[in-house]
C-alpha cells in the first residue's frame, strides 16, 4: 500500500482550517485525518505539524501516546476483541485465540490481503453482553469460539 497525501488533501486542508479555529486542534485533526487516510504515516504527520505550527516531535509524541492512533496501515475491517474485565472473565481470550488462528495473524497485525486487522481493545461498553467483539462499527455480543468463523465471513 503506497501512501498518497494528495488523495484527500482538499478535505484535509478544510478540516484543519475548521479545527484550527477551535483551539487544541491536534487531536481532533489526527482523528479525522486517520479517518480519511486510514492511518497516520510520517508524511501525513509532518504535514499536519506544519499546518498547525507544531513541532514534528510533538505530533509524533501525541500519536504514539494514544492507542487509537496508528502509524501503520490497517485492513479493510478492524476486528477488535474486547479484553475488558467483563469480557475477560467471560472467556474472550478463547475467542481471541480462535480469531488469531483463523486469520493467521497476531493481535496488532493485518492479514496479507488487507481484509482484516486484529486488535485487542478494552471495554466497548457492552459488558452486560460479554464476551463482545467489535468489527468496524458493529458489535457482536456473547460470542462463542465456534461462531468466530461465521462472523468473520460477514465482512468482505
Amino acid at each position, binding site marked *: 500500500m503506497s501512501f498518497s497525501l494528495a488523495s484527500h488533501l482538499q478535505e484535509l486542508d478544510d478540516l484543519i482550517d475548521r479545527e484550527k479555529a477551535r483551539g487544541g486542534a491536534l487531536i481532533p485533526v489526527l482523528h479525522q485525518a486517520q479517518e480519511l487516510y486510514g492511518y497516520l504515516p*510520517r508524511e501525513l*504527520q*509532518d504535514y499536519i*505539524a506544519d499546518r498547525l505550527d507544531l*513541532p*514534528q*516531535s*510533538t*505530533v*509524533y*509524541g501525541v500519536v*504514539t*501516546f494514544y492507542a487509537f492512533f496508528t*502509524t501503520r496501515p490497517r485492513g479493510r475491517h478492524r476486528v477488535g476483541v474486547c479484553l475488558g474485565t467483563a469480557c475477560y472473565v467471560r472467556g474472550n481470550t478463547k475467542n481471541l485465540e480462535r480469531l488469531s488462528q483463523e486469520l493467521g495473524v497476531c493481535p496488532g497485525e493485518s492479514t496479507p490481503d488487507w481484509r482484516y486487522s486484529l486488535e485487542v481493545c478494552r471495554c466497548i461498553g457492552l459488558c452486560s453482553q460479554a464476551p463482545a467483539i467489535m468489527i468496524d462499527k458493529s458489535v457482536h455480543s456473547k460470542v462463542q469460539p465456534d461462531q468466530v468463523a461465521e462472523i468473520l465471513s460477514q465482512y468482505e
Partner: protein
Amino acid sequence: MAQLTINGKKIQTPGGTILAVAREHGIRIPTLCHHPALGPKGACRLCLVEVKGSRVLQPACTFPVSEGMEVQTDTPKIRTARKFVLELLLSDHPQDCMTCEMCGACELQDLMYEYGVKETPFRGERHAYPADDRDPFILRDMEKCIRCRRCIRACDELQSVNAISMINRGFRAKVATSFDTPLQESNCVFCGQCISVCPTGALTEIDSRGAGRTWQTQKVTTTCPYCGVGCNFDLHVRDGKVVKVTSRWDSPVNRGVLCVKGRFGWQFLHSPDRLTVPLMKAELWKKRTGTDGTPSPYAGFVEADWEAALDAVSDGLAAAKAQAGPDAVAVLASAKCTNEENYLIQKLARREIGTNNVDHCARL
C-alpha cells in the same frame, strides 16, 4: 510573607515552592527531574516530603509553601520512599558507572551513593537500547535515561527547537525525535542544551569520550571566541588540552545556553593547522627586511611577528589609498569579534582610511 516550619525550623518567606524555600535556607532536598533553568515537572518523585495534614507525600519541587505549613524533609518514611524509587530506577539501568562518561558528575549515581542503593530487589525487563552514535557531537545512550524530561524541556524552553519529545507511554516511553530518527534527520540544531541538563550519562559529548573524568580536569571559565554575544562557559582542561565545554548557569550573558559552535567547536584549539603567529608572504618579508625569515609549514609563507605584520598591513593600506583613493579599500569585519572590536574596525575604516566600504561576515 508566609511563616512555616521545615524540619522544625521556623522560616519566614515571601513564597515559592517548598524546594526553593528549603534551598534558600540551606536545607537540601534531593532532586532528579528538577533543574533550576527549567520549569518544574514533579515527575521523578525523589523530592517527596511530608506536609502535615496531607495524606500522601508531596513533591517539594512543585508544592507551594503556605502560611502555617509544617514540612519534614528527611524522615524514615521519606527515606524509604526515595530509596524505593531509586531501586526501581536501578532495575532499569545498566550498572555501567565504570566506563560511563558521567561517573562522578552523575546525579543518579550521587543519589544511589547517598541512599546506599547497591542492588535492586527487582528483576525484570530492562531497556536495552544500543548507544546511538550516528549523530555528530551528541552520543545518546538511552538505556541510561531515567525519563526526567530535562532534555525535552531544555530543547523547548531554552532553545525553542522541540526536536525531541516523549514518545510511547508507560514502560515503553522514550525520549526521541519524530519517528525516532537520528537527531540529524530532525530539526535539531546541535546546541547541546539537552546534554547540559541531563542528570545522567544518557546524553554526552561524543568527542569527549574517555577524555577525562570530572575530577581529572581543570575547569577554566572563559568567553566563547566565536561571536560577539560572548557566551561564558567552562573549558575542561586535562594535561594542557581542552577536552570538553560545559555550561555555566550563572553566566549573566547566556545563562548556560550555548550554540553548536561554542559547545562543540573547540577542536581547532589543538589543531596543527591553527595559526599561532602571523604569517607573511616570503617575498614580501624579504622585500621589507632583506632576510629569508623563519620558514613556516605553509609553502610561500614565513613566520612574522605582530609588529612586522601590522606594519606591512598599514603600509599596504596607505599605499592603496594614496594610489586610488580611500574607496579602493573595503573592510570586512568578523562575527568572531566583539561588538566593541567591530565598532573600532568601522571607526578605523571611516575615520582613518576614509571609506564607508564596511561589511561583516555575518551578512555574507
